[in-house]
C-alpha cells in the first residue's frame, strides 16, 4: 500500500503512538525527521514521562545539563528514568532530577550503582507508618 502518495509524505498516524516506546536517542532522531514529529515532541508530554537512555555508545554524551533539559520536558511529572552507561552524570545531577520530579518512582543508573526502585512507594510507606500514630 503506497501510503506516501496519499499522505504526501506525512508520517503514518500510528507512528505517533509509537513515540512513548522509544528510548531517548531515537526520540531525538524522530524529532529531526520532519516538522510533524518535531511539533508532536515539543508539545506532547507523554513521550517524555519515561526516559530510557540505553545507547551504550552515546550514553556518555549525556551531561548533567543535558539530563536536566531533557527531563524538564516532563514538567515535573517524570515517572521513570533509566540510564545505561551514562558515565558523565554526577550524583548531584541525578539528585536534581529527582528533586524536580517528586512523583518519580523509578530511577536506575547502571553506572552509578544507584538503584532507587519504586522510590515513591517507599516514601508513601514511610508516610503511612508515621500517619497511623
Amino acid at each position, binding site marked *: *500500500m503506497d*501510503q*506516501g502518495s496519499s499522505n*504526501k*509524505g*506525512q*508520517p*503514518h*498516524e*500510528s*507512528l505517533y*503512538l*509509537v513515540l*512513548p*516506546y*522509544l*528510548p531517548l*536517542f*531515537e526520540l*531525538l*532522531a*524522530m*524529532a*529531526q*525527521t*520532519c*516538522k*510533524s514529529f*518535531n511539533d508532536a515532541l515539543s508539545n506532547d508530554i507523554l513521550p517524555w514521562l519515561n526516559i530510557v537512555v540505553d545507547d551504550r555508545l*552515546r550514553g556518555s*554524551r549525556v*551531561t548533567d545539563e*543535558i539530563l536536566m533539559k531533557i527531563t524538564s520536558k516532563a514538567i515535573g511529572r517524570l515517572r521513570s528514568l533509566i540510564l545505561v552507561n551514562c558515565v558523565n552524570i554526577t550524583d548531584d545531577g541525578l539528585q536534581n532530577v529527582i528533586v524536580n520530579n517528586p512523583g518519580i518512582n523509578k530511577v536506575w543508573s547502571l553506572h552509578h550503582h544507584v538503584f532507587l526502585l519504586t522510590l515513591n512507594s517507599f516514601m508513601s510507606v514511610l508516610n503511612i507508618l508515621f500517619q497511623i500514630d
Partner: protein
Amino acid sequence: MLKNLNSKHIQRFSYKYLPQFPISPNSPKLGFSRSQIANYRSNFPTTIMSSSKTIVLRSSDGETFEVDEAVAVESQTIKHMIEDGCADTSIPLPNVTSKILSKVIEYCKKHVETPNADEKVAEEDLKSFDADFVKVDQSTLFDLILAANYLNIKSLLDLTCQTVADMIKGKTPEEIRKTFNIKNDFTPEEEEEVRRENAWAFE
C-alpha cells in the same frame, strides 16, 4: 374520600399492570397468572450472560465475525459497549477493515486460549506466536497499531508498537525517513536549528 375521586384521577390510573381477578373461585384472587409472569419475564431486560455467548462484530467493509464473548472482551472498547447494552445485534467497527479485524481476532483468541502462562512451554509458545504475528508488511503493522489503539487492547498495542520501535532503533533521521517514507518538510533554517539543538547527541 371516594367521593372526591373524579374522572381525572381515574384516567391516570393504569389498569395494565394490575393482576386480573378472575371471577371463578378456583383461580387465585391475588397475584399474577402464569402467562402474566411469563410475559413480564420476556420483556425484562436481561443482563445475565451465559458463558457460551457469542458476539457479532462488523468490520468497516461490512463483513461479520462471530466470536466468543470471552475473546471479544479482550478489547476494552468492546467490553464497555457490551456493558452499556450497545451489543444487541452486532457491534459495528467502522475503523477496522475485515483484513485487520480477522488478525486481531486471531490474536485475542490465542491469548484467551493460553492460560496465564505458569508453564514455561505455554509462555514460550505464546512468545513465538507473537513474534510470528508481527511478521507482516509495514502497512498491516501500522493498521494493527491503530486497531489495537481504537479497540483498546493493551497487550496488542504494546507488541505492535515495540516492533516498530525496534525498527527505529539505531537509525539516523535520514534512515528513519527512508524506512517509513516520511518527507523532510523542514525549511533549511528550521532544519539547521533542530540539528544544532541535538548536536550534542549526534556529532
